[in-house]
């Protein structure tokens, strides 16, 4: 055992030297790729009206045509490696449906939290490792793009998407809603807007997601800031939120559980699919339909050094297609398409004409720390 351990260490030390060398080369590549990413202007649209039937048909035709080209190449590659923040059950269901649709491809996955995904992919990227094809997540891919670790890929089905990013294919959405415990507060007494949440009369009733982490509340702030385009209003909102002296949580899901338990009456914010799933089970939670949902893209980003790039593209396109969206919807995640109706789609869950607030601020997406230090920290911690 000692001999084997010594050998492992020898190999390890050798690897350090090699990685050290490779690291410098990787840095140059990263800087170059980061510059390219800078050029990629994010074009995002808020929740818009349903696309015309011909747009749906055109998207489907474009997908089928591309899939026909990609599938033989993907078959030759034979593998798909996915890193994801999603629940293992969801990743399994989605990758199994994909491999069933496209036989000859074997899918494997690794699941971690966003910081773990970013740390792993960046370390692998800087070490020159061709380790993963798809990063299926919300916060991680944009950050990785800023480091040059994501390949730019524009989907052929862009016209049917609620939020479109020309470099990262949006396969689902994170939709935030204003949720509450129906045993603790009546709908009529609930805030009528996000801004209204900061009203002093709700003091003692609310729990907040930590606005100083890259989580749902900070992304909501980024979305609202963009929408309001009014610094005074934005600063006042944060100041008033702070004045509530509300308990702050670093885990949105733990906070939501405590709202269900009755510890708090109002959840700022909750994820729509969680609220709908719980509501269906008879849990005493609901959400305010009049408060505009905040939408954040969940993407299937393609790794810059993907060992199976054609399979990665095929997967991203399939996930956006009607067929892929059905699978994504079946595990309870929101569709990214305007023409896909499900219980968690904005069209079904909110009144007609509701305009969602998209989170598209490039600085927030790629460097949340800098954005928070600039716009939130001086007020929140000042």
């Amino acid at each position, binding site marked *: 055992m000692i001999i084997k351990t010594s050998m492992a260490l020898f190999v390890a030390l050798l690897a350090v030297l*090699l990685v050290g060398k490779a690291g410098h080369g990787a840095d140059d590549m990263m800087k170059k790729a980061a510059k390219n990413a800078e050029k990629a202007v994010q074009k995002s649209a808020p929740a818009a009206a349903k696309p015309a039937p011909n747009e749906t048909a055109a998207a489907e035709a474009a997908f089928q045509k591309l899939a026909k080209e990609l599938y033989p190449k993907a078959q030759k590659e034979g593998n798909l490696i996915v890193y994801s923040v999603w629940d293992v059950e969801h990743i399994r269901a989605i990758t199994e449906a994909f491999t069933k649709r496209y036989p000859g491809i074997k899918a494997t996955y690794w699941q*971690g939290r966003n910081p773990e995904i970013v740390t792993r992919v960046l370390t692998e990227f800087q070490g020159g490792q061709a380790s993963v094809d798809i990063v299926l997540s919300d916060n991680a891919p944009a950050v990785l793009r800023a480091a040059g670790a994501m390949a730019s890929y524009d989907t052929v089905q862009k016209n049917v998407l609620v939020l479109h990013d020309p470099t990262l294919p949006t396969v689902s959405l994170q939709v935030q809603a204003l949720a509450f415990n129906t045993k603790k507060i009546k709908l009529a007494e609930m805030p009528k807007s996000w801004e209204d949440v900061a009203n002093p009369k709700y003091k003692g009733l609310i729990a907040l997601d930590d606005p100083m982490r890259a989580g749902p509340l900070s992304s909501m702030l980024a979305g609202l800031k963009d929408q309001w385009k009014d610094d005074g209003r934005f600063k006042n909102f944060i100041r008033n939120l702070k004045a509530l002296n509300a308990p702050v949580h670093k885990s949105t899901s733990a906070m939501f559980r405590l709202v269900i338990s009755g510890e708090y009456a109002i959840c700022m914010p909750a994820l729509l699919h969680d609220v709908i799933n719980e509501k269906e089970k008879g849990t005493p939670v609901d959400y305010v339909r009049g408060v505009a949902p905040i939408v954040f893209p969940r993407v299937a980003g393609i790794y810059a050094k993907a060992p199976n790039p054609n399979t990665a593209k095929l997967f991203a396109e399939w996930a956006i297609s009607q067929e892929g969206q059905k699978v994504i919807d079946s595990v309870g995640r929101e569709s990214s398409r305007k023409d896909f109706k499900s219980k968690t789609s904005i069209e079904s869950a909110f009144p007609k004409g509701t305009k969602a607030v998209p989170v598209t601020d490039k600085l927030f997406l790629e460097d949340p720390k800098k954005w928070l230090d600039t716009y939130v920290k001086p007020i929140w911690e000042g």
Partner: protein
Amino acid sequence: MPLLASTVAGAAIVTPVLIVLWRSFTTGKLGFSVGLNLNNYLRVFADRDILPMLGNSVLYAAGSAALGTGLGAMLAWIVARTNTPGKALVELMPLYPILMPPIMKNIAWILLLAPRSGILNGMLQQFFGIETLVFNAFSMAGMIWVFGLACVPLGYLFLLPVFLSFDPSLEESAYIAGSRPVHTMLKITFPLAVPAFLSALVLNFLRGLRSFETPVLQGTPGNIKVFVSRVYDSMALEFNTGLATAYSIVLVALSVITLYFYVRATRFSERYATITGKGYRVKVIDIGPWKYVTFAAVFLYFLAGIAIPFVVLIVVSMIPYYDYETFMKFPSNMVLANFYTVLRHPSFITGLYNSLSLSISIAVITVFLGIIMAFTIYRTRAVGTKIFEFIGTLPLAFPPLVLSVGLVIIFLGTPLYNSLWALGIGLFVAYFPYAFRNASGAIVNIHKELDEAAWVHGARWRHVFFKITLPILKPSVGGALFYIFIEAVRNVDVAVLLTAPGKEYGPVTLFEYFRVGQWAEAAAGGVIYLIILIVAVSVAKLAFKMKFSL
């Protein structure tokens, strides 16, 4: 040879640490290489908020370590040295709480102690009309209580072998001189257990300093910020492992100070030698009617350590959702859907199987090398071996995510990356401090005269080690093996970056449910997991008479 083996083990620990240290001087945001500079450290020293955070961290870690280690030591003494009734039960009761993962205790105690929705405050209100919110999970006291309970197993497992291998002549001399049992216990028994006690205390203190789940789940809502959150923010917001390492250096400094006091306190190791060349049998003390009090103490710990949180989790896993009202309606509202969901999960069984096989090997290797390192320090004449005191404890000062980055960098580009070997070495590095501190605490209690007798007769190191030291350390070995196996089998934070795609490690479902906040499903998974382990431990203990340091 022991020096060589210790050096190899030390190198395995030091290499990832050196890598992350190097990167702390050369890496900026997003892992970009920025040339040799001190920027990360300048930022740490310029951070005005870290002092109050450090104050909270030290209070939390010291409070939990004192509570947990003290309670563990008391339980070990009761089990080993008193005539407390119900011997078989008393021996088993302190073991079961070890099986419960700390995160499960967190969730259960939050549900018990939450101010407005907690079970205990609800009961006080419903049955006694007390409107005041007596309990508060989101307070420093609540954090210390919950993490303190998680610290008990180390205290118990480290102290038990010491009390079991005690030369009673020391106590008998005191009795002959007219000392009363309590006086003897305080003046003779406990002082001789100081090295093992301090070993467990140091480990628990360092665990507390870097612990994250309890401060996140219980501290943040109560506006209690701890230092380690800065390390995690560096990773989660700036994706800068260099800065995270620079922050971790503060923890390393605290570890060095703690170890300095430990080494000073135990520098005359002969003073603590309770295992000598004389033959003896461990004496059980008749504590009279106090034996019922000690039984009650063990039983109370059993209730707080596992029974109450376990019952809470069972109920939570079987009700449609948790709130006090729904909880109290149980069992009329019982549903089994959560169990169905967990058992149907595609990777519950495979993850458990993978981790079982690796954890057994890792526990054996780690414990063995831990003893060798402690042997090198205390039983060989090689120069400079005290450095191993520091090296052997070093991994505990680094938050697991930071340490795993160093390991990933080591293995990248080699055939070891994404292999079980890499994961195994990662787990070895992470758990080595437990094996090492356990062995060093125990080895100090063995009088050198036993080795010296062998040396005088021309024995070589291997004879001394395998024929004398190792057999005497058997009780400690059992405890450490059991502890490291239980910890490694459920490891998430070290394993996460080292697990290959497609190879689940650990009962992933259970921890995934906790991580994503599905508490009912998590509770169901936890109940299944605990039942498997409780049955395994009970069968091992009762049917096969297996000793977990008992």
